[in-house]
């Protein structure tokens, strides 16, 4: 092997505290190094040209560049090396800027350290092998998980782009949280008027296959070729036949069923269509409440259904969908406000969540838009909003800001005044966070035009006196205790990751944070990608977001998928694990630990059990290499021998040290 070493000054960034000439001179004494030089800016055009010329002139077969972090310029130099006619994996970098010159002052020590780093880069390079990417076909269908506004937007954009879309929604209708909202901030336009047409578009778009009341059971395959098992849960209504006429809802004797759509404010029937604008508008039986299931007799709906759509024997069904990419738009759920016992949450009927309040205000809600308090149906006059319920509170393990509560509270206070002109709203808050376009103006309007009274401070407790609720808290600005006599207390509950989000993440093999929100690939530069190729994120599953941000991400994720599918074939990263079949004893410990399901069990031609890596699924973590005791499976480019050579070069086991 003929190695060339290029030591970059990076202007004075490196050369300021590292003697680059000395590093280059020392490199000449490393095995297989036949050329070594220092250069002002290796990454500049002349710098790269210098590398290319040196490769040709000195017949180099591998290149080490000692400069900045490989996370910065490795792709740059790989391309240069490739232009010089070498395989781009015959290249290593020594990070002598971020890890040396910028963090150490002593030039002598820095130089010595830089020499070591070049040495181990060269040792690793000596054991590099040319790697070649594999190409494979893509199935240009996309799966979108979650039919909230982000998922809807992504589905519509993908479908408009000509892709076949499979949209899977957990509940019986798409629409998500937004469908439950009365109005949206800061424009105070009708939520369902904005969302409704989009929902209809989804239903009518021939490119979109919609599976509602369905969940993801299993995800196999890899980018370009995923195989998805979708569980269609039993609705006990044959949707092929159901026309959504609603007759069953009228006749159903079980009228005290929990109304999920209305957040438990009011009740519904055991067989129901969740809301009039539901897409698809189909009935479902809630088996927890249906008398046929709980008592074993009834069947009224079956008798009166004009299309005979009722089927009490219906079972869950698993269907398979093959797609090339996945967009996860599973949204969020609301913090369980009962954890704040001091606010009387769950104890006093007139302490409700902000979402319940949305339903009370909504014309399609249980009170047809008349704000009535749950306890006695009276119209409340004094309404107290408490902010940060399940946000910015370490004591409930929710240290993060949910981002949108300040805004929706401002909106709800404004709407309250619209509904009940003689009402007074009070808002207990920590800080008002209103950084969006026209947001802060909106909050101001609430204060200035609608007379919402903002009190900066936390509420200590809420307790009933008569039919009133006393809200006691601190006004930290005034430095005094305050007590407000309220008719209704609305808790601005924060967002938390959707129920089941971690489980789904594990099915999808993507990472999630401590709170169950999905991890993006890079917080700045790859906000909708995940670390699993072909899986993208949209909306609040990645972290709390308001509607415009969710819609934006839906479109962004769709654009990513469209870009991915703009090629007919994909190239896999060749830095994958590789099985040396001669050494594999077929114990499949690697199969057990692979986080990506990238290793399959095969038989060789003699019938011996062997492992085989599916290159396109392997993400190159190397977990398998450590799991395999006989080192039969090796992560290419990070083989045992490569890492060992670095260790041995740094710790040469000799007696020189006393």
């Amino acid at each position: 092997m003929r190695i060339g070493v290029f030591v970059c000054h990076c202007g004075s960034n490196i050369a300021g505290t590292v003697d680059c000439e000395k590093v280059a001179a020392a490199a000449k004494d490393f095995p297989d190094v036949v050329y070594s030089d220092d250069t002002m800016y290796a990454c500049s055009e002349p710098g790269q040209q210098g590398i290319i010329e040196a490769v040709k002139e000195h017949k180099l077969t591998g290149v080490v560049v000692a400069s900045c972090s490989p996370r910065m310029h490795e792709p740059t130099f790989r391309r240069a090396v490739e232009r010089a006619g070498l395989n781009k994996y015959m290249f290593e970098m020594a990070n002598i800027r971020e890890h040396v010159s910028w963090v150490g002052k002593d030039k002598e020590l820095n130089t010595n350290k830089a020499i070591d780093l070049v040495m181990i880069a060269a040792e690793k390079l000596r054991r590099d092998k040319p790697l070649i990417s594999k190409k494979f076909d893509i199935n240009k269908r996309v799966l979108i998980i979650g039919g909230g506004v982000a998922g809807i937007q992504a589905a519509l954009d993908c479908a408009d782009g000509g892709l076949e879309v499979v949209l899977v929604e957990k509940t019986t209708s798409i629409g998500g949280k937004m469908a439950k909202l009365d109005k949206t901030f800061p424009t105070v336009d009708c939520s369902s008027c904005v969302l409704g047409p989009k929902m209809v578009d989804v239903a009518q778009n021939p490119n979109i296959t919609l599976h509602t009341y369905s969940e993801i059971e299993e995800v196999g395959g890899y980018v370009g070729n995923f195989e998805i098992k979708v569980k269609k849960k039993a609705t006990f209504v044959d949707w092929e036949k159901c026309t959504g006429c609603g007759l069953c809802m009228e006749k159903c004797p079980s009228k005290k069923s929990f109304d999920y759509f209305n957040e438990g404010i009011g009740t519904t029937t055991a067989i129901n269509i969740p809301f009039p604008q539901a897409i698809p508008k189909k009935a479902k039986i809630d088996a927890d409440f249906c008398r046929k299931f709980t008592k074993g007799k009834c069947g009224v709906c079956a008798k009166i259904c004009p299309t005979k759509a009722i089927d009490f024997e219906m079972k869950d069904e698993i269907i398979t969908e093959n797609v090339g990419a996945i967009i996860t738009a599973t949204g969020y759920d609301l913090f369980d406000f009962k954890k704040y016992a001091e606010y009387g949450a769950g104890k006093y009927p007139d302490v409700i969540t902000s979402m319940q309040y949305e339903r009370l205000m909504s014309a399609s809600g249980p009170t047809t838009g008349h704000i009535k308090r749950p306890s006695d149906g009276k119209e409340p006059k004094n309404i107290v909003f408490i902010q940060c319920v399940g946000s910015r509170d370490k004591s409930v393990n929710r240290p993060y800001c949910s981002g949108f509560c300040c805004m929706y509270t401002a909106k709800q206070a404004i709407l309250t005044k619209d509904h009940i002109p003689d009402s007074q709203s009070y808002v207990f808050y920590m800080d008002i966070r209103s950084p969006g376009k026209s947001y802060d103006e909106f909050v101001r309007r609430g204060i200035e035009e609608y007379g919402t009274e903002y009190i900066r401070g936390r509420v200590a407790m809420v307790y009933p006196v008569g039919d009133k609720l006393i809200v006691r808290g601190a006004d930290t600005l005034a430095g005094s205790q305050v007590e407000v006599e309220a008719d209704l207390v609305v808790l601005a509950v924060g967002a938390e990751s959707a129920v089941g989000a971690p489980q789904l993440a594990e099915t999808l093999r993507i990472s999630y944070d401590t709170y169950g929100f999905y991890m993006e690939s890079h917080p700045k530069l790859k906000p909708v990608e995940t670390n699993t190729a072909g899986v993208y994120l949209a909306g609040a599953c990645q972290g709390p977001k308001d509607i415009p941000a969710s819609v934006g991400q839906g479109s962004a994720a769709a654009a990513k998928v469209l870009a991915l599918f703009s090629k007919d074939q994909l190239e896999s990263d060749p830095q994958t694990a590789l099985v040396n079949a001669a050494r594999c004893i077929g114990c499949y410990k690697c199969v057990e630990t692979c986080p990506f399901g990238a290793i399959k069990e095969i038989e060789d031609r003699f019938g011996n059990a062997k492992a085989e890596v599916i290159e396109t699924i392997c993400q190159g973590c190397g977990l398998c290499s450590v799991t395999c005791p006989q080192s039969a499976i090796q992560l290419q480019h990070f083989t045992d021998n490569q890492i060992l050579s670095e260790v041995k070069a740094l710790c040469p086991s000799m007696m020189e040290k006393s």
Partner: protein
Amino acid sequence: MSEKKFLKNESVIPFIEGLAGGRKVLVPVCEGDAVIYRPYRKDCRLELTRMPTISPKDATFPRTETLMTFKQAPVAKTEGDGEGDSDAQPKLELTETLPEEKVVVFGSRPCGARGKSIFTRVYETEDVKDPYFIGRRDNTLFVSIACAAPETTCFCTSVGGGPADTTGSDVILIPVDGGYVAEAVTEHGAELLQSDLLTSGADKAGEAEAVIQKSMELLGDADDFSIAREKLIELFDNDEFWFDMSAKCISCGTCTYLCPTCYCFNITDETAGKSGKRIRTWDTCMSNMFTMEASGHNPRTSKANRLKNRVGHKFSYYPSLHDKVIACCGCGRCIKSCPAAVDIREIVKSAQEYEDVNE
């Protein structure tokens, strides 16, 4: 044989210390339950009554021997301007590393010392002379202690040796009451016995004779392994026989590594930076890797193949090439230390007694 001398028990340590002048002295010491050869150190746990766990071959055929060292000479130039001969290939400097150390092994058993005679027939022939082995052999003296209490695993008399066999020894010590009757076998041995610590041992000759006689009795009748030469070849293709014989073998190298006569080795290169060395290390024919070719082909894939080679080599191939001398000295280490108690005597006997039922 030269005159008999007497070494009192109390004089053993001074005698060993006297040997140390100019030579490294290896003595059997007890570590754990194992008795191994270590350079003599004051107050070490000398163990002269038990047979050392490992044979003394390490002295003449070390576990690791550096055959040569090499070093890549630095590349002359390179200052990036392309001048001069930057394409020149790095030159290599090769240095032969022959052993020079002078050694005395004190306390080996006759069977252990005998082992090197098996080496010599292979390592020093007309065609080839192994300078490392020869160098060490010529620089190493063996002071052996005759065997007074053979164990059930011993069978030296069946393979041409005996409890007081002198082959390979320079001095033989016969344990008697209160000390050892010492006799020089070689001139070098005689020089070692010049020490004032020894007294005349003529009067103890009878006692020494009796000790050996007793030992011979304990060993019982010698087995005749002479027909094994043909018999093992005949059985070469009898897979069932070897499959049976090797069933309990676990393919480790204990038998070969402890053996005084097993002389096979491996050669590998090790490097650190630009320098390196070519070393030879003990190897074992019981390992699958021993004959594994780079292509993946292996003529001895099963432990049956490998055991067959070990037994065959010692009792057939070697004797056929070297005047019927069996390449085994009957020390029994391979039996006693075998984790599965594979008994080479039984295998050879089974082969000799084998009758093909199909014939």
